[in-house]
């Protein structure tokens, strides 16, 4: 596994330091890292090519080395371009001038259309609409039943006519029945299909012609690989999409498909699915997606999660300590206990920039038992030892502490190593957070204009 893009760029620029001015080939070397990161994230290789060309235009000729941290600046450019390319957040559904609004859900097999249909219905109801779901997947066994069960859970009506009629006929009948039933939105769940299946693609075209939906949403699995381009291109050229829903983003995929789909269709990603529950549908955040694709960790998510769990005072105190390098072992223990509340520790760490997929993560694994050890060790230290362990702790002190805490010198050393790594990682986390918050202003920075 590669380290994150941020770390890799840091490495690249370290090599280039002292050269005074960046040549085109230096920039190319940095962009090679960006290219690798995007490809690892499953962004389609053609999309990557175009993207790199754009970035290069912006990066060449700039005195990157004059800035303190050229790696950060390249990331900044990449992050900005990526965010722009992802489009703004637009999670509106085209409404019909005269109800009902008809929404058609399309996509590959297993992408998550049925669940997303139900989630969308749920969300639309929250926004004051009266949705009707339509079971038009007559092919997959029990697909109709699945939608009916979900409708039951939501207490929303589901229109179905069994699996013997043509999907187009079912859709049409549903739309016709909607007004009479007091429904102002019709959400049609269609069967999954491969975009190379001519017969089934023609069926969708036919449905569009006949029913004239106001919104056609392509549902795409966030884990999709290079095929995302062909899928999105084909569905878009044959149906004219209005938007995209990205599903299963609650996993650990980098989600490069988002960039692929967006750049070949030009259509907005309107929603993302982040769980199996029926309220796990959220508006799309371009900047978060950009970070995720770049492997910078899902920082904003982590920040949000942290904010839910830490109180603001604690956060502020911790940040101040870190900045002034006063972060002590006692704080570390505190930290361990706090982080534990955020969820499985590996998952939390994987969200932190520079640590995702990093080997160091292995050493950082913390389990309950270790926490008990850590506490015992730290409690056996004098205040001076706690506040500056590197400087104060020598062999004999360590032996004393080991004795006092019922541990070994080895365990103490391991704890100290973890402490150092945590300090580093927390600093990185805070730096990133800071530079991100400034993100918007960077554009106006004369340096980059």
């Amino acid at each position, binding site marked *: 596994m*590669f380290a994150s893009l941020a770390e890799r760029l840091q490495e690249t620029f370290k090599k280039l330091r002292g050269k005074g001015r960046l040549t085109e080939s230096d920039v190319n070397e940095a962009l090679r890292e960006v290219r*690798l990161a995007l*490809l*690892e*994230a*499953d962004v*389609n*290789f053609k999309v990557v090519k175009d993207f790199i060309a754009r970035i290069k235009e912006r990066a060449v000729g700039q005195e990157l080395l004059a800035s303190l941290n050229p790696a950060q600046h390249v990331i900044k450019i990449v992050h900005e371009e990526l965010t722009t390319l992802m489009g703004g957040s637009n999670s509106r559904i085209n409404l019909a001038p005269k109800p009902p609004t008809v929404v058609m859900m399309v996509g*590959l*097999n*297993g*992408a*998550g259309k049925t669940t997303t249909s139900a989630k969308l219905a749920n969300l639309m109801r929250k926004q004051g609409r009266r949705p009707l779901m339509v079971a038009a997947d007559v*092919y*997959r*066994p*029990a*697909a109709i*039943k*699945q*939608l*009916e*069960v*979900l409708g039951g*859970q939501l207490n929303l009506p589901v229109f179905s006519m069994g699996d013997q009629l043509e999907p187009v006929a079912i859709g049409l009948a549903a739309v016709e029945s909607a007004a009479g039933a007091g429904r102002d939105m019709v959400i049609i769940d269609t069967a999954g299909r*491969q*975009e*190379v*299946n001519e017969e089934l693609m023609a069926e969708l075209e036919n449905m569009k012609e006949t029913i004239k939906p106001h919104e056609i949403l392509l549902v795409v*699995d966030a*884990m*999709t*690989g*290079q*095929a995302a381009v*062909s*899928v999105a291109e084909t569905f878009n050229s044959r149906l004219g999409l209005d938007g995209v829903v990205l599903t*299963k983003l*609650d*996993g*650990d*995929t*980098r989600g*490069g*498909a988002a960039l692929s789909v967006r750049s070949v269709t030009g259509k907005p990603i309107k929603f993302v699915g982040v769980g*199996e529950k029926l309220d796990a549908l959220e508006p799309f955040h371009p900047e978060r997606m950009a970070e995720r694709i770049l492997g910078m960790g899902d920082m904003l998510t982590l920040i949000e999660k942290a904010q839910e769990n830490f109180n603001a005072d604690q956060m502020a105190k911790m940040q101040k300590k870190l900045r002034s390098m006063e972060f002590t072992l006692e704080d570390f223990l505190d930290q361990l206990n706090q982080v534990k509340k955020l969820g*499985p520790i590996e*998952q939390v760490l994987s969200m932190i920039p520079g640590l995702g997929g990093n080997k160091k993560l292995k050493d950082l694994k913390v389990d309950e038992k270790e926490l008990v050890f850590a506490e015992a060790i730290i409690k056996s230290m004098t205040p001076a030892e706690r506040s500056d362990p590197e400087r104060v702790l020598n062999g004999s002190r360590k032996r004393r502490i080991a004795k006092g805490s019922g541990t070994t010198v080895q365990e103490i050393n391991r704890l100290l190593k973890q402490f150092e790594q945590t300090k580093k990682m927390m600093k990185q986390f805070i730096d990133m957070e800071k530079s991100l918050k400034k993100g918007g202003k960077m554009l106006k920075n004369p340096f980059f204009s």
Partner: protein
Amino acid sequence: MGLFSRLKESIKGGSQQAAAASETTQEPELEKTGFFGRLKESLTKTRQSFVEKIDNLVHRHKAIDEDLYEELEEILVQADVGVNTAMELVEKTRRSVKERRVDDAGELKAILKEHIREMLGTDTASLNITDETPTVIMVVGVNGVGKTTTIGKLAHYYKSRGAKVLLGAADTFRAAAIDQLEIWAERVGVEIIKHREGADPAAVAFDSLQAAKARRADLLIVDTAGRLHTKANLMEELKKISRVLGREMAGAPHEVLLILDATTGQNAVNQARLFGEAVGITGIALTKLDGSSKGGVIIAVKQALDIPVKLIGIGESLEDLRPFSPGDFADALFDE
């Protein structure tokens, strides 16, 4: 026992043996074109685009140069092989070219193919069918990859070869998942053990194995709910299902089949890793190869974790399941 030894042979053998088996068991679908033919057919798209690209490449460049290697790498990346594995493959090709003093660009393809095949492994992996019955297969994977459908296909495969097959509906979570498996059971003509939606999946697994023993089934296939490999609690649930099966019968589940969607990119490697850590994957079934995806990620998976791909899914109907043979796969990918 005799039956399963035969089955073992039939699914083990890749192209020839599969074709031979289909003759003896009179499966018209298979006979018409044979495994290899169907595989080729399903990979036509893949092959066309892939091979066309390589051929274009080779014809455009006469001498072997850097651009050529770079383009080779791109083609591999585009097949979802993954950029690291692609670079490695190109590097190996480069080395072979040097060692063998090849200077004709036309030979590159054969060399690359050789290395792909080598990475995939040379043996056809068979399902772990036990002599003691029932053989227990547990099917796992992330949401929507094709677990339930593959179970339908597998049940059909074994049923049509005379095995007594039982299905366990241990996806008690997803809406109508039980109904879905039930429809497949009806289609195939096998029995199914189920509880109601929301029941403890481990309890379903337990009952299924009890029933399989009591009814002297040859094969029990347990469906599980789709879950993202990153969800610790759901992975714990899966471990529990596996444990319960193991407690009821030593060695069970004999086969833990991970279903991977060929459309998936590099995340498939994480899936294989984490499912493997949780329940010990013994084989992979790669589905949806009838789509436009190249399925190249299995090379990366094999490379990272050395788990054999055993089956491929090439469509939505009962017959659309084939044994996977690394050699055939690599060949079919490149054959004209």
